[in-house]
């Protein structure tokens, strides 16, 4: 899989944000792994990557962090919009605005015209493990997220994460 189209999860009266989905479909490369712990208040286990959209050269930001209960949270955003947000190893259902419940353990939030990711009540779709991307540890969660969002991790040294 290189891009997951979440259209089937939303109501007919709503639609996906075309400009954002175009960026999700586009080929993207993870370029760098920043180290920014000094003088900042950060989660114990965190990762930040620059993601470059091949066609436009635009750089967006991918973040991953782990909370104390062992759940993983990822986000893909530029300075003004959040494109995707994912929660892994959660114990509870996510409730979509159209009444559909997404079962645990993994789901990914996505924006629609009516429900942007700036709102509290957002749509999400389930995320299923594929191959060695089990979604159980920090690196496999990252791989799985990138699998759903068409991001190539080839230039990132995963052994250092």
């Amino acid at each position, binding site marked *: 899989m290189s891009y997951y189209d979440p259209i089937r999860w939303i109501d007919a009266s709503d639609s996906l*944000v075309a*400009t954002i989905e175009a960026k999700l479909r586009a080929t993207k490369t993870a370029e760098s792994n920043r180290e*920014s712990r000094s*003088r*900042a*208040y*950060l*989660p*114990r286990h*965190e990762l*930040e990557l620059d993601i470059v959209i091949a066609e436009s050269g635009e750089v967006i*930001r991918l*973040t991953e*962090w*782990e*909370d*104390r*209960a062992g759940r993983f*949270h990822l*986000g893909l*955003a530029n*300075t*003004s919009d959040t494109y995707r*947000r994912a*929660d892994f190893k*959660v*114990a*509870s259902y*996510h*409730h979509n605005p159209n009444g559909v419940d997404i079962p645990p353990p993994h789901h990914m*939030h996505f924006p629609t*015209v*009516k429900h*942007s990711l*700036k709102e*509290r*009540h*957002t749509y*999400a779709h389930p995320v299923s493990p594929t191959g060695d991307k089990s979604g159980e540890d920090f690196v496999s969660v990252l791989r799985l997220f990138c699998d759903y969002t068409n991001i190539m991790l080839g230039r990132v040294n995963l052994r250092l994460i």
Partner: protein
Amino acid sequence: MTSEELLSQVKEAVVNRMRVVAVGDGFLIQLPFDNYRGEPMEIGVRLQDNGSFLIDDVGYVSGLLFELNEHTEGAPGNLLIKQLVDSYELEIDYDDGIITERLSITGEVEKLLDFIKVITSIETVLPFISRPRKKVEGRRRLTAQLSREISQLRLPLKVEKLAKVAGKHEIWDVEYKYTRKEDNSEILILVADLGLKEPRERAAHVITLASDVLDVQLRQSLRRELRVVYSSNGDHSEATRRAVNIIDDYQKRIGYKAFNYSDPMSKSLFASITVQDLSPMKM
């Protein structure tokens, strides 16, 4: 709805949504409030050897700061956290990325409630701290962009900027006005930037202005044409979408032409007819 039914609903929302979940070294209190991911806010509780217990935010505040790019020293989000933590005498554990407070096992309920209040407030407010400001400069940008492109035609003297135009009932300001000699038409260009505070008010202004200026009986030899150039500046809000629909839908009925400057095809069409109008042969 009876008062009993209302009471039952409130209890359902507040009391029944409180949960306590066991985790490895303690438990999590799930509050009846959702965070910005739509998940319940949580407080972690861990018993300590010395008869005290430690409560924490499960690392959610540091994660939220990081995700919002507000984690660096001096960022507004980071400053807010520090001020709240200092005021309520909480601890920040920089190694583990959690906010904690140590409580004695014998009744410090007030401190627990204060901790819940602080964490709930932070998780509610933080997502809005880094929200980008409304594009108040948007109109200036679109107007400036148009001005630059029209001036490149090197015919500025024949184009009147910020012109006054008499409608049937009111005198209106439009960004540009010129006369097309070919058919003696008065061309008005109105700029509507929908990245402003209330795009629907801007759309309503366009409709009113268009109705008024196009309802004027001009001299028989003079026609009037209104072109509305609008741009949403990438704002995909519901309000902007409705404003765009209003401007597009009413153009045939009222008789103006609308051009979406964010759409390359529409922008190119506008540029093309303006260039044709202003070419030396037609002036």
